[in-house]
């Protein structure tokens, strides 16, 4: 149980760190189209 709690804590800390490092890129900006008719599904 103690081991499980420490894994979870580590996972939470790492998870938050990863999320923070990409925080400003986390919204989907809409890119101009390179062709008029269809575009890449999600343009990040």
């Amino acid at each position: 149980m103690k081991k499980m709690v420490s894994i979870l804590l580590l996972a939470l800390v790492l998870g938050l760190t990863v999320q923070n490092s990409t925080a400003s890129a986390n919204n989907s900006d809409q890119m101009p189209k390179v062709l008029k008719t269809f575009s890449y599904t999600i343009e990040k």
Partner: protein
Amino acid sequence: MKIGHLIRAERVRQDMKQVVLAKGICTPSYLSKIERNQIEPSEDIAKLLLERLGMDPEKFQESDEETEIEFEKMLLETYREVITERDLNFTREKLEYLEQNVPLFENDSLHYTYSLITFRFNMIVRIDSEKLKQEIELLEEFIDDFNVYQLYLFHLNKGLFCYNTGNVKMAIHYYELILHKLESLPLGEWEEAEFNFIIAVFYMADGHTFNSIDHARRALNFFREQLMMSRVLDCYILIGISYKRSDKFQDALEAYSKAMQISEEFNLHSEKGIIYHNLGTLNSAMGNTHQAIEYYKKSIDHKIDPSEKLITILSLIEDYSKTGEKDLVRDWAEKGITLYHQLDDENQISYFHHFSFYQSLHSEHGLSVEIAEAAIQHFKEIKDFRFIHKYCIALAEWYYNNRKYKLASSLYRDGIRYGYIYSKKEKWEDL
């Protein structure tokens, strides 16, 4: 008559098998030789094959050198017009004209240029990526015979094709092949500007902010000199996104303001939807969630093409979810799913998974594990690490809050692993 390549191109375009075309006229292996220009067919056979393809044999007169030179001149001029005009109907019109007036090429090289240019037009007017795939594969067979300009056109097309089928890294690979030789290529200024614009978009899609801004500025200088204002506007949007992603919010705001000013001054009102959307994501990144939501709503109101609304509905849902407005998340997710079904476009399926995930997460019964797993599986299939990471973490949080610690721990681990890949890190030591 040397019509093999024409017959082949038209047969592939019509998705017709060699056996079907050859039936009652010649053997399939004979047709195969004709298509490779290894055999010159008799006039009778050529006439029958062309007729079966719905082409008028009378039109295929032997063309002399002069006709071909004239055609080449017209072809290259049409290419410039279509690419700089960026108008769907104009492209359709020109493509039709070229297909109807294509001469019988004695010159293989001119046929390659024709095929490469019409392929580009087809990418603009057609959505059927399977057919485009077949055509690009067909063109690839002749790659050793291409001259420098044709090779440039081929890489340009291949890169665009990769980008539009979601393979951004491969798209960059093809464009960098061009980039390394750009100075020695016989390109017009407009072509170079167009190339710089597209590679700027590709770089941005793959997170290479500095490269993107550099190429966007080069394209911008040319477009501004030529007063091609809708292209200038596109460049400002790209520059705005670059600044936003480098956390230079004020500079991003200025770039978007310039884009908005251009849309007002030059009556480019249809572009306001994309500007408002990006003002929304900028405000969201700055922590101004309420302002962001206002911009998203304006964006949805201004967008004419319904498929463009999907990305904004998703952003709206994300911000409502952040502020905990469950009802509004559900309402917009419902609208998004309805729109997805109306559009009936498989290319947009990622949005279906996004909307379903949020709808389920904020529903009365809470997140459905099935829906969450389907979303994660989908993003694994298309190798979109950002969203695998996102939804693994979200599902893990769900398990954790419901005291399912074992499942939560395994998903946190998965989430973190994909987060590493997304942020280009190998191990925790790299953090």
